[in-house]
């Protein structure tokens, strides 16, 4: 096995961590849909932390190993159209996803504090765990990352 094979494997594992994390957050969002319960939200914080670690590692891994691969392989160049498209889509998806995480993170932190203090419900939690801005950011980020995957497989113009 060559170094390039290892880089490709790490790139692929990172992509699995990234999309896997998005799925985890989808499961959480559906499970907590329209809830205002602070204890329910707080109980899923461990899941959220695992998802956050996976999405961070996956985002960094895909871009670092992806660019490394494009530089290292003779068949592809970083300035190939499909590679540039992937980088641009990745950057937009990452930023949109960060905004989703900000919204859900804020509500999750508040839920944790209120649950500890014995307050069972929260208007912020109710507002966030529905069709909120954070929800739409998450949906948009998911679509964008799937577009990156499509771009990676079809490699238009390659």
């Amino acid at each position, binding site marked *: *096995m*060559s170094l*390039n*094979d*290892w880089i*490709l*494997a*790490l*790139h*692929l*594992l990172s*992509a*699995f961590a990234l*999309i*896997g*994390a*998005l*799925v*985890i957050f*989808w*499961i*959480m969002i559906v*499970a907590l849909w329209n809830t205002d319960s602070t*204890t*329910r939200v*707080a*109980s*899923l914080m*461990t*899941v959220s932390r*695992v998802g956050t670690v*996976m999405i961070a590692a996956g985002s960094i891994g895909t871009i670092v190993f992806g660019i490394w*691969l494009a530089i290292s*392989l*003779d*068949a*592809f160049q970083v300035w190939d159209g499909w590679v540039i498209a992937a980088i641009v889509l990745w950057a937009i998806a990452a930023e949109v996803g960060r905004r989703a995480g900000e919204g859900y993170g804020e509500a999750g932190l508040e839920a944790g504090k209120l649950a500890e203090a014995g307050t069972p419900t929260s208007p912020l939690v109710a507002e966030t765990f529905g069709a909120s801005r954070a929800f739409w950011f998450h949906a948009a980020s998911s679509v964008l990352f*799937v577009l990156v*995957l*499509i771009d990676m*497989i*079809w*490699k238009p113009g*390659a």
Partner: protein
Amino acid sequence: MTSLLAALRPDSWNFPLFVHVLGAMVLVGAATAAVVTSLGSVADSERDRMRRLAFRSLLLVGLPAYIVMRVGAEWMYSKEFGDTDDDPTWIGIGYITADLGALLLLIALITAGIASWKSKTRLGKAAGVITALALIGWIIAVWAMGAKPD
């Protein structure tokens, strides 16, 4: 070599590959969610809900994703290798982890279902451990699909 194959991959392979990869990615996410909800520490009042969530993650997301992944894999295999008897090692790893993973997924589903229905804490944890074993196998498969060891 892998880069060469990727560059020369016929267009007709792309959709089966997409189906296979997307199914596998969703499966990994669902299994991870099930493992964390089964094995993570949680308040007593939320235990039943967590067991239910683990079971539903496996049943409603993990199982359909597994089927999609497997259908995509067979479709891709038929295009890439056809009737060849001499499979490369990475294909062997893929088949072993997929078949063993299916068995573990089925056992985990049954145990998680009973744990959720009968409120059995230890059985719920067992389902989490079994799912974790399947997940380890699938992660090895992802590595093999990328690194393609001889």
